[in-house]
């Protein structure tokens, strides 16, 4: 059974279609792995074992009856706890929503069910997706499968750790400033933030509505593409959802496997996302990857994006501003906990304030107060208004760059996985770990992270970020699949082939 969990979603799908494996067997194998490793890793906040097996049995029965099922039918998937689910609690990593079972499915969850994927459970995250380490979850940290003393990234550390430790072949994430791509980078997995509006946000508990985007988490580019095809496309329930007709991302990924797929591709290296502040081993693997691209016929050019320097500052004004209004909905009336104040009168105002004191963690309070400040009279223009102008400047930087190149690349994160506690006492240090990923959210362009090796100094995964113009998500899958194939041919194995051994042995470190 161990072998089943190592299959990619695409391989598992082939076996399910051929009838050599049943959905029940596949689901049980992943549930067994969750039992084996997740007490320690804590990627899941909730595991729906019985429901998953029942769903799998129904899918097997339909397949046996000759029904034609979709490409991912019977494939298990983990769901980030920011997405509402009818049959599972949804907390967004916060005490304020402890035990809440939503009365509706997020659109992406409904689409998973319609495509007959099997939800295994809900994954851990920084509270309301505020964080880069999953240390801000109210339910305890998730450990990095490569090194238990290190963070799995955030906010989607649970989803990334789940796929990297073979507890699920696929997961859903959400990315507001890097919460899919940075966890992918530090766990050696793949993560994609689609174009803003390409995937529905309906039922994604809102952090910052102009930045949030739901996307796939997986171990291969092709698997991410298969999942993107299931969840993507227009949703009338999300008024910011794009009405575009999208090409098949799976077909785009397949196109990247053809000989010469990288020949003549114009690749821009962003000058501002390199150099000081980047770990030596990260820079080394990134530079080696550029050399591989050159050898494969790609044209590498350095491009400058001078306003990226202001991206983190703009982001930490826009995000808290939007979050402070979005989180006003936690008012102790319609959902979540209610806490009465210890003293004073029991008015709505006092009960709300006492509930939010008890229900929100320190980072959530910090950002709500910061957002309230940025939006308050007398400061609005200087802070929030200025940040919105920076957003324009960053969009212009992207536009200028994409006039010269087809894709932009950078390291996905400035460092490999850091240790627990390392940045917890210094909010700005934590915020700066998103320096590479934030620009894409501010501009709405799609971004992907794929593994490109282990940093020599610590043996931990390094990610490559690929960005494309808005609406050109297919380009990420084509060139991402091409680069992944090139790297694996060089190594002679996949990056995560080494992860299970690492997950089970605390000290062994492989070298790539």
């Amino acid at each position, binding site marked *: 059974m161990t072998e089943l969990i190592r299959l990619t979603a695409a391989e598992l799908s082939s076996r399910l279609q051929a009838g050599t494996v049943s959905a029940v067997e596949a689901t049980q194998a992943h549930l067994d792995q969750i039992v084996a490793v997740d007490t320690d890793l804590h990627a899941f906040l909730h595991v729906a074992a019985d429901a998953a097996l029942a769903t799998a049995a129904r899918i097997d029965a339909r397949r046996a009856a000759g029904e034609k099922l979709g490409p991912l039918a019977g494939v298990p998937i983990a769901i980030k706890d920011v997405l509402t689910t009818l049959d599972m609690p949804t907390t967004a990593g916060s005490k304020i929503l402890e035990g809440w*079972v*939503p*009365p*509706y499915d997020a659109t992406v969850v409904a689409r998973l069910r319609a495509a007959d994927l099997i939800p295994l459970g809900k994954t851990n995250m920084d509270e309301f997706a505020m964080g880069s380490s999953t240390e801000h979850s109210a339910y305890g940290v998730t450990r990095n499968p490569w090194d238990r003393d290190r963070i799995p990234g955030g906010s989607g550390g649970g989803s990334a750790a789940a796929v990297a430790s073979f507890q699920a072949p696929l997961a859903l994430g959400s990315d507001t400033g890097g919460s899919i791509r940075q966890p992918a980078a530090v766990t050696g997995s793949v993560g994609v933030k689609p*174009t*803003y*509006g390409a995937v529905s946000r309906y039922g994604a508990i809102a952090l910052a509505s*102009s*930045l949030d985007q739901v996307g796939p988490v997986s171990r291969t580019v092709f698997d991410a593409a298969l999942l993107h095809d299931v969840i993507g496309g227009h949703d*009338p329930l999300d*008024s*910011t959802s*794009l009405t575009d007709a999208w090409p098949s991302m799976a077909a785009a990924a397949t196109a990247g496997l053809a000989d010469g797929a990288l020949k003549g591709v114009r690749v821009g290296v962003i000058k501002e996302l390199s150099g000081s502040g980047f770990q030596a081993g990260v820079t080394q693997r990134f530079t080696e990857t550029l050399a591989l691209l050159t050898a494969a016929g790609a044209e590498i050019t350095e491009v400058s994006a001078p*306003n990226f320097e*202001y991206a*983190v*500052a*703009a982001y930490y*004004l826009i995000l808290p501003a939007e979050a402070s209004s979005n989180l006003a909905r936690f*008012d*102790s*009336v*319609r*959902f*979540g906990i209610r806490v009465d*104040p210890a003293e004073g*009168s*029991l*008015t*709505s*105002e006092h*009960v709300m*304030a006492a509930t*939010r*004191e008890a229900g*929100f963690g320190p980072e959530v*309070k*910090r950002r*709500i*107060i*910061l957002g*309230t*400040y940025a939006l*308050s009279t007398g400061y609005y223009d*200087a*802070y929030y*208004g*200025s*940040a*919105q*102008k*920076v*957003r*324009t*400047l960053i*969009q212009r930087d992207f536009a200028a760059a994409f006039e010269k190149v087809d894709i932009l690349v950078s390291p996905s994160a400035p460092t490999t996985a850091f240790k627990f506690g390392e940045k917890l006492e210094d*909010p*700005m240090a934590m915020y700066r770990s998103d320096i590479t990923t934030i620009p894409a959210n501010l501009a*709405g362009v799609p971004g992907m992270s794929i593994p490109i090796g282990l940093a020599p100094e610590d043996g931990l995964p390094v990610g490559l970020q690929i960005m494309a113009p*808005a609406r050109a998500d297919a380009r990420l899958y084509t060139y991402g699949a091409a680069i992944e194939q090139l790297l694996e041919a060089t190594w002679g194995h996949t990056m995560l082939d080494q992860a299970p051994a690492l997950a089970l042995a605390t000290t062994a470190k492989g070298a790539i």
Partner: protein
Amino acid sequence: MSAITAEQVAHLANLARIDLSPEEITNLTIDLGQIVDSVAKVQEVATADVPATSHPMPLTNVFREDVVVPSLSVEQALSGAPARAGDKFRVPAILDEE
């Protein structure tokens, strides 16, 4: 320096409807001061000639057909409420007695 004061933090917390302990106010005053100093650099490039962007992929006039579609039942809508009274949300008093 932005010089955020403890009084300001207490006022902001009141606006945001979050009770804070004196210790939380002290810590947040320090944190906020550092963060605001750092993010204030946006002002260096945000000149008058640059238009603001509020949304990455601007859409206008997003309408739907004016037809009734299924929505939550009363039971579903109340299912997560911390307190209910019949078919309604039960809320604390709006006005203070004083």
